[in-house]
């Protein structure tokens, strides 16, 4: 029988050196709601599991001058219970809270959701739109990268051997800003996104959009940052014409696949529909 070692170090440096020096496949464990499923199905046979949850700071949410630091292994449930975070970044929280069921919420983390690198993951588009930064520890020290730089392809990330994410940073929400996330699934629970869309906007005193970031999930091998869609919003109020432009820009970048959850045509169309609906929520949250 092949051996499997489990270890739960209590410091970041210990975890880094365990991961860096592992000879076989080493996997970081946060909630395990992806990892354990993949191991049970036989898809993944790691030799070493490094559980990060015993490392101080990996679980928990800190608010520093209006900005937020979220431990990489913090569960969706903890995020949903954090009133300050919910008030500041409702889109990030609602995206995270869409993951799985109540049981899954007790475990599922942002780091796991991101690093599992599924195109359909719910929280990454919302983190990207919100401008979240991932803090990475590794053999060469610590580095900070925007969330959109982590996933490179389905199941692949830009993390090097020995590296793992320790926390996510969300900026202080600018005045008159709002974010939102919607996903489309044919049923109401326990399904993976056909399309996910997150938008964060900042408005001026007249309700005109002065900053925007639009991210799509499940319509390409990785999450997409849709610059054209953001450009369609900036300098404008949410008129029908602007919504139509937003819709078209989102559809234009989609490179989905046809699978059991939806065809290319369907996913592309729904991406535009969701973008319009998400924009309306984000603008309303920003005070429009």
């Amino acid at each position, binding site marked *: *029988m092949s051996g499997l070692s489990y270890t739960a170090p209590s410091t970041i440096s210990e975890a880094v050196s365990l991961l860096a020096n592992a000879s076989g496949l080493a996997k970081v464990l946060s909630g395990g709601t992806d990892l354990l499923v993949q191991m049970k199905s036989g898809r993944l046979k790691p030799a070493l599991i490094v559980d990060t949850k015993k490392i101080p700071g990996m679980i928990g949410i800190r608010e520093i001058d209006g900005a937020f630091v979220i431990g990489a292994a913090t569960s969706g449930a903890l995020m949903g219970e954090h009133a300050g975070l919910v008030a500041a970044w409702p889109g990030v929280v609602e995206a995270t809270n869409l993951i799985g069921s109540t049981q899954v919420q007790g475990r599922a983390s942002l780091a796991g959701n991101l690093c599992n690198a599924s195109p359909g993951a719910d929280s990454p588009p919302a983190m990207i739109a919100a401008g979240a930064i991932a803090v990475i520890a590794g053999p060469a020290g610590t580095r900070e990268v925007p969330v959109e730089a982590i996933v490179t392809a389905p199941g692949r990330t830009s993390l090097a051997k020995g590296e793992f994410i320790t926390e996510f940073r969300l900026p202080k929400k600018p005045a008159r800003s709002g974010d939102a996330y919607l996903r*489309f699934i*044919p*049923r109401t629970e326990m399904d993976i996104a056909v399309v996910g869309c997150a938008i964060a906007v900042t408005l001026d005193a007249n309700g005109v959009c002065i900053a925007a970031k639009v991210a799509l999930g499940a319509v390409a091998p990785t999450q997409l940052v849709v610059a054209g869609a953001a450009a369609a919003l900036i300098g404008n109020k949410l008129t029908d014409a602007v919504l139509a432009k937003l819709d078209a820009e989102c559809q234009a970048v989609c490179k989905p696949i046809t*699978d*059991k959850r939806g065809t290319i045509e369907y996913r592309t*169309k*729904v991406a535009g*529909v969701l973008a319009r609906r998400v924009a309306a929520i984000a603008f309303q949250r920003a005070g429009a």
Partner: protein
Amino acid sequence: MTYIGNKSDLRVVGTRPDRPDGVEKVTGRAVYGADFRLAGQLTGRILRSPHAHARIIKIDTSKAKALPGVKAVMTAEDLPNITSEEAFVGEGPTNFRDQSLNVMARGKVLYEGHAVAAVAAMSPSIAEAALALIEVTYEVLPHVIDVEEAMAPGAPILDENLFTAGVDPKPTTPSNIAKKIILKSGDIDAGFAKADVIAEGRYVTAAVHQAYIEPHACVATIGADGQATVYASSQGHFMIRSFCAKLLGMEISNIRVIPLEIGGGFGGKTIVYLEPVALKLSQISGKPVKLVMTREEVFRASGPTSGAVVEVKMGAMKDGTIVAAQAVLKYQAGAFPGSPVQPGLMCAFAMYDIANVHVTGYDVISNRAKVAAYRAPGAPISSYAAEQVVDDLARQLGMDAITIREKNAAKAGTKTVYGVTFPEIGYEAVLAAAKSHAHWKAPLGKNQGRGIATGFWFNIGGESSASVFVNEDGSVSVVSGSPDIGGSRASMAMMAAEVLGIPVDNVRPIIGDTASIGFTNVTGGSRVTYATGMATVQATEKVIEQLKQRAAMIWDISPDAVDWKDGQAVPAGANAGGFDPLSLAAIAAKAGKTGGPIGSEVSVNAQGAGPGFGAHICDVEVDRETGQTTIIRYTAIQDVGRAIHPSYVEGQIQGGAVQGIGWALNEEYIYGA
């Protein structure tokens, strides 16, 4: 006999006592299939085909057998190669040979997931390692999944020895169409000639799984003396016994099947998958063997219901009278014959009194898991299509959807296409209830729509056994042979309590194993409350006769002079004598001195079950941009007869509606994706 259905002064029946299995289930103490274990048991695992259709050239199990910790490896070679024989063991006809080939492929695999070999080992990880060591050489064959493609000339043939039954002259080339069935009444052409409007449509339904919460699971053990015991959760332990005996060439008397708590079946557990394999592995290893399916195995290798194509054409006169109804039903059977196309044909138009009916059914095999029964097997598929066409007729005629159904409703005296003339039935009452329900008239919002459909199911009786014992303290045990998937223990206890005139808390219901109660058909076909209930009521009445005799003995009067009232023996009248009533407990306490223990067992083959009808109204809202469909309101009107335990009946109706919604909106099997 006491006809509970007609009694007006019921005290227990119709109330909602706590269910006898409730505490065990909510506290996690109930022992389901996968919970059961025997000392020294081995873990069994099944190797399944990765191909939809392939010839098995060779299975080399030598490496698996040599792995330390592996105690048994088997293939179809270890099972008797039995001949074709019709079996009426589960819910609907099947064939023992097909079942043998389904539990373990011989010569060919016929669907992805088809079992090809099995192992039993000291641990799950050894068992899994052993599976990986079994080398199967396949010659992959072209396969066919879709029902109409399977029917088409030139389709890959699953069984070279299968010739379509029911066609004249007997075909000379093999076909995937196992059977063609035609039912007809009147003159269909003349009927359509009379019609002012004609509606028709082609309807496709998906194969969907029953998706019971509990995967199939069993533990089997067989001793050196050939005595076997199987512990399993199923819809019929006698069914398991029959199949194991046939498939393994064993004597019925050498097999005892002990039912465990069942976590849902919906028809899907009226058949065996694991038990014969576990028994064979136990025989080879000399140890008890436990087999538990994973959820994936349940989906891949146990029976969904048929996916189908149904074509319906109906004609009506201007006044709404339906004068012709025609349908062609093409039902997937899975890899072996035996789809529920026959009940599909019988049920399609059973709600209506139509003079000219012509229905044709095809039972079609393809490279899918063998279908199994699912809630009124076959009926929802054909009803779905027929009901759409009835709606189309109503639209063309400008008639209300309930009115056209009322106009054509079957009633006492209506002769069905399958030959039965209905007695008093409830369809018109169901329609009247639907029409007068506030839901039918409630306003609809934007993007919302309303549909109605009605349905029919026979209900059957069949063979059931129950025994009723009075314990020393006057409490009562009810033992039946029916696994409880929908509240039968509660119902049996309530019926016994009702007849005895005692509180239901004084009655403990259990399910007897195959050696401790008489033969009982599967829990299926909507038969248990009726048939097992009949056995229970009759056994209870026999017990009352005994109680009266014992009281008569105690009072030293004639048994005829004793009445049974409110749970007590009382003198039948003034002439009988002035005795104080004797309670059940008082009589039980003296049982030893008055002839010994009091109890009775009754076995019946119940006949004459009344059919059931239903009408469901559903409002949906459709998001026009995404197509997302949301159920806004759902009302089920169901002719249930006498609800013994109304909460259970409501639960059944709610569960049925939920499964129907899933079938309509979300569920399907997608192959090759």
